[in-house]
């Protein structure tokens, strides 16, 4: 299989890492080589977070190059715009429409850009925007935005949905399982 490149973008604290883990564990479970990589450290809270998941017969670099992502999943609209250039022509973009203010905006030092969604759609008309927070709350917990986002792209991954569901069951224990599975299904139906 040719390399399938996924970029997941968001804000520190949104659960980008768990979403990446679900995708990479699923790839491993279906026998693919996989590398997953994100930058954390100072991006622990409120910083911009970007994570790469690469899968295929043999994956070398852990880094996705701009212009080569098959799929960009963004948990926040401004972050979708920031990392849009990672998509390859014909790639797929799904983003959460709920904005989170950068600290600079919260402090009144910068302005959250106007019409971020319109800017995304102007550059990428096929992009799909969904209110992942509402769907997460419907599933029972506003923190399940990450599973909603995974749900939205399930149909477009090189492995089937049953596999992803099984991995989510394995990775999240206790009461969280039910919420996460609901969130996954909610995202898939969006």
């Amino acid at each position, binding site marked *: 299989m040719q390399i399938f490149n996924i970029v997941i973008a968001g804000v520190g604290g949104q659960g980008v890492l768990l979403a990446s883990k679900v995708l990479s564990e699923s790839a491993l479970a279906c026998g693919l080589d*996989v590398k997953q990589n994100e930058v954390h450290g100072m991006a622990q*809270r409120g910083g911009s977070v970007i994570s790469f998941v690469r899968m295929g017969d043999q994956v070398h670099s852990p880094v996705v190059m701009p212009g080569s992502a098959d799929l960009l999943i963004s948990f926040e609209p401004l972050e979708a715009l920031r990392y849009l250039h990672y998509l390859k022509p014909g790639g797929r973009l799904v983003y959460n429409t709920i904005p989170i*203010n950068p600290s600079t905006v919260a402090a009144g030092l910068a302005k959250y850009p106007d019409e971020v969604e319109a800017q995304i759609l102007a550059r990428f008309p096929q992009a799909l925007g969904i209110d992942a927070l509402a769907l997460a709350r419907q599933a029972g917990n506003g923190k399940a935005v990450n599973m909603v986002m995974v749900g939205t792209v399930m149909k477009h991954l090189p492995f089937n949905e049953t596999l992803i569901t099984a991995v989510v069951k394995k990775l999240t224990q206790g009461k969280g399982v039910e919420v996460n599975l609901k969130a996954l299904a909610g995202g898939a139906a969006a």
Partner: protein
Amino acid sequence: MKKIISGNEAIALGFGDAGGVFASGYPGTPSTEVLEEVARLGEVYCEWAANEKVALEAAIGASIAGGRALATMKHVGVNVAADPLLTLSYTGVNAGLVLMVADDPGMHSSQNEQDSRNYAKFAKVPMLDPSDSQEAYAMTRVGLELSEEFDTPVMLRTTTRISHAKGVVVPATKIAPEIRTWEKNVPKYVMLPNFAKLKHVEVEARLLKLQAYAETSPLNRLEMRDPAIGIITSGVAYQHVREAWPDASILKLGLVHPLPVEKIRDFAAKVKKLVIVEEMDGIFEEQIRALGLVVDTGKDKLPRCGEINADILRAALDGSRARSTPPVEDLPQRPPVFCPSCAHRGLFTILSKLKTFVSGDIGCYTLGALPPMGAMHSVIDMGASISAAHGMAKVNALAGRSEKPVAVIGDSTFFHSGMTGLLSMAFNGGGALVIIMDNRTTGMTGGQENPGSGSTLQGTATHQVEMVPLIKALGIDQVYELNTYDLAATEAAIKKGLATPGPYVLIDRNPCILRYKIRKPAMNVAQDKCTGCRACLKVACMALGLNAAGENEKQKVRVDPNVCNGCGVCMQMCKFDAMHTLEGENHANL
């Protein structure tokens, strides 16, 4: 069984599977998860040391006592541990000892971009440079074996993209070698000059033996493909090379010090163009050029600063341009920020207001240097806040300036190497105001235990260091508590500290809300009372934002209840009584 794990997790697993018995380190991105994973696996004794020097020295003791040992740290941690490292090279080991060091090219979370390969040359010890999680796993065991075979410490070096990247690992058979006998051997372990002189001769001979080993070791792998281009590389750079030029011939170095000189000569003779691809410094290149070999491309075209990747390599060698459209420009940055309800926020709100010079340190509070606070004016290394403030105070006195410098340091950094600075200040009669943000954890790296936490890395309850008696014992009499959630009291305390001659210490003891999962009800803004003056926004909290304004109206502030954790610092900035605590459940998504 196949697993997908990070390089750091692979090193932890590899150490346990190779019969490791003692692991010590100090947290530092991107090395931290190695020891956390050793603790999680639960099979090997492990501990956080007070600093990297202590970690390495404890590992040396473990090795002398006969147990396979591991010390972990980030690149700058090796500077702290350099003193034992350079003499450990002379003594050698009993049981195998691996020093794992994680470099941070691109400085994702570091104050400099030093290349640890220089330390292997400097200390004259072998260094392994894995290129993925599987190699990180295997090289941990190889490192222990080489350490015992050649009687030397072995450095295992990663970079951020190895430590934090996850890849597939197939573990080897677990072994459990017996703990070796503990012997007294004065000429080997006592580095008095007469013994050290003999040892230095052995170190030079050992390097020659290691070089001979390097020539035939499978760690250095020849991959002959198209001979038009031959690339010498190592670590994650190897993966970028494979990505950029799948058909190129490669000499992939796993043992990066000492270099396999004959193997390199042979490789150079087999290929038309010799290219050397290294992230950061041109260490191979220097040595290879010194052999008299012709290098077609190296640091003349490849960057010394930052990370490399396949696009950078292609651009440098082929002049090919990246395939992507350019990124959207002028978007507001999203820098990291104090967590909602972090105790640091109140402190920097006041320091920013007082406009005093702040000598800073390494930790979450370093973010106080960023706008809108801008209340930190020097940050050098762990512990420097106090010692540098001492030097500033001395020169200020000589220059007849009345301004007293303020040092800000966290608890873990204070235990690491701030205590010695304060001791020195007390000893020499300094005059700085030292503020210790004692949140009972090593926050920036994700909340690791330290001597003030009351529990160890393995979760055992332990003695909790009390700051006030400790500081008094160092010779400081004026030590007072601070509560940075109370802005007026904080301002008064800092002003008093600045006005009082001599060393003066303030300690804030509010715990890290993230580490200790502290939840408070969110705030709310009464829109009829808010005048849109934006005074509250000076506290730089993600939970605050501005509502859309109507005609001829100022934008008013709103609080996001999903983010707010109810500390009330913004409320104290409000002169119009517009902010109140929201009744009911806290929804903060921390």
